[in-house]
């Protein structure tokens, strides 16, 4: 310790804490953005179909591999890779709904949930068969620039993740709030059958919902590839669960809830990692799930389950 007087020490300590807080906030925003993007898909699909799409985490993983293919094999460049990956993932989501979930629309929900688990395992094993079990390096789509301000460290990747996620979420929120398709999505969560009396093709709205959810999950897949630059066929399992927790914390079925839940879970995890042994991180996430289910099952933004007039 340098021969500082008391005041100097106090002053240094404060700015160190301040810097640490900003650093952790940036890390929390990055992780939270990724959780939020994935959580939106869980929440929207649950909103319209009352289905927990347990394959959603694996769609996120497939999104990573699709992006890897577009970026490395086709050499598309960053903007085109993102757009093409979103389109391909949207197509995959629509296809899965069409083949696996639509025939079970009026079946008991437990059948659909088991199907969703099956679809998820299929996606994992299919990817495993195609690309093999070795983790693969994800390319740097953007020139990676490290920024350091007064001890705070961030990067072009981190800032891109935070800002682009925010832009996508605001766009989605406006779509859901302002367009008639968005109104139809919300109306479906109130009553699936009545919506057709308004002239709305329910199947089309369900397809759009899946397309939006899976394309956002694929963007999250790209972000994870950029931030932690290794991907593997099982990366969707734990991240998928965490995003599901985020959706439940926010109130599953609610778009804004999923966003808030993602950021809340991101912040809690970063705080846990910073202050506790890192092995506690997942345990804390699941403890939060159990706690929320116990005390506020509808989440922070969810409406109570009973909704029929």
């Amino acid at each position, binding site marked *: 310790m340098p021969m500082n007087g008391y005041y100097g020490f106090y002053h240094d300590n404060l700015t160190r804490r301040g810097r640490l807080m900003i650093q952790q906030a940036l890390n929390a925003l990055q992780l939270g953005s990724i959780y939020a993007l994935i959580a939106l898909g869980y929440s929207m699909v649950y909103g319209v179909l009352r289905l927990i799409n347990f394959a959603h985490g694996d769609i996120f993983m497939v999104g990573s591999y699709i992006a890897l293919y577009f970026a490395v094999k086709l050499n598309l460049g960053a903007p085109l890779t993102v757009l093409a990956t979103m389109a391909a993932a949207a197509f995959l989501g629509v296809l899965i709904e069409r083949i696996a979930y639509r025939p079970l629309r009026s079946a008991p929900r437990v059948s659909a949930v088991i199907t969703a688990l099956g679809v998820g395992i299929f996606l994992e094993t299919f990817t495993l068969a195609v690309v093999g079990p070795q983790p693969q390096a994800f390319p740097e789509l953007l020139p990676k620039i490290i920024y350091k301000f007064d001890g705070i460290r961030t990067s072009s990747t981190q800032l891109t993740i935070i800002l682009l996620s925010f832009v996508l979420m605001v766009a989605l929120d406006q779509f859901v709030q302002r367009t*008639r398709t968005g*109104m*139809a999505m*919300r*109306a479906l*969560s*109130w*009553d699936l*059958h*009545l*919506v*057709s*009396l*308004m*002239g*709305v*093709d*329910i199947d089309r709205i369900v397809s759009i919902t899946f397309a939006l959810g899976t394309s956002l999950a694929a963007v999250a897949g790209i972000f994870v590839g950029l931030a932690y630059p290794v991907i593997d066929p099982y990366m969707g399992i734990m991240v998928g669960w965490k995003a599901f927790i985020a959706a439940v914390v926010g109130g599953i079925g609610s778009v804004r809830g999923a966003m808030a839940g993602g950021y809340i879970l991101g912040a809690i995890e970063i705080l846990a990692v910073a202050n506790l042994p890192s092995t506690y991180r997942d345990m804390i996430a699941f403890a939060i799930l159990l706690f929320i289910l116990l005390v506020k099952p509808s989440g922070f933004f969810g*409406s109570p389950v009973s*909704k029929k*007039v």
Partner: protein
Amino acid sequence: MNQPLLQVDGLKLAYGQIIALHEVSFEVAKGEIVTLIGANGAGKSSTLRAVSRLLPPLAGTIVFDGHDLTKLAPHELIGLGIAHVPEGRGIFGNLTVRENLLLATFQRNDWDGINADIERVFSLFPRLRERIEQSSTTLSGGEQQMLAVGRALMMRAKLLLLDEPSMGLAPILVKEIFRIIVELNKQGATVLLVEQNANMALKISQRAYVLENGRIVKTGSAADLRQSPDIRKAYLGDD
């Protein structure tokens, strides 16, 4: 009678093993108000749901304006001009009043016309204008019924299927709702009405059909049915 706008023939419908409708046949001519009366469980709502394709019939034909409705999906009926105001009104409680009205224009893109129709709904139901940005769960039962009828207006319906529009409303609101049904009919809408309030319904209808246990047991002009002793005893509360 003119060529009927809606013609239903030999409609048969079941919920699992339970037959809800046996051979139900009826027709509605353009410009008419026709009522289906009957007790709870007689099959009135099932008939409307079959017409609007919410329930698949086991047998029978439903022809509207030359189109075979049994070949269409529910959302395609709007394009033909059929609006169904379901029992319990079918308001989306998580949407605002404005959003409920806009959702009903899902298949339209004539924004001038849509805005004009919203104005028309508000001039018919001024109370809805005050509540335009409110969540529709905050509406009273009468206001919800106004919103449900308003949505049908937004669809520019030629045929209105109204399921128990007076249910749960105070007498003064029942009168108001029936007044508006007559008004819409004068403006050109054909109406197929299902009502337990047979007295009011028969007053505004030209013709009626009486449903009992999934069968049509009686039909005639509304005026005749109001005079019929059986009907008076069973549905109009006479001893």
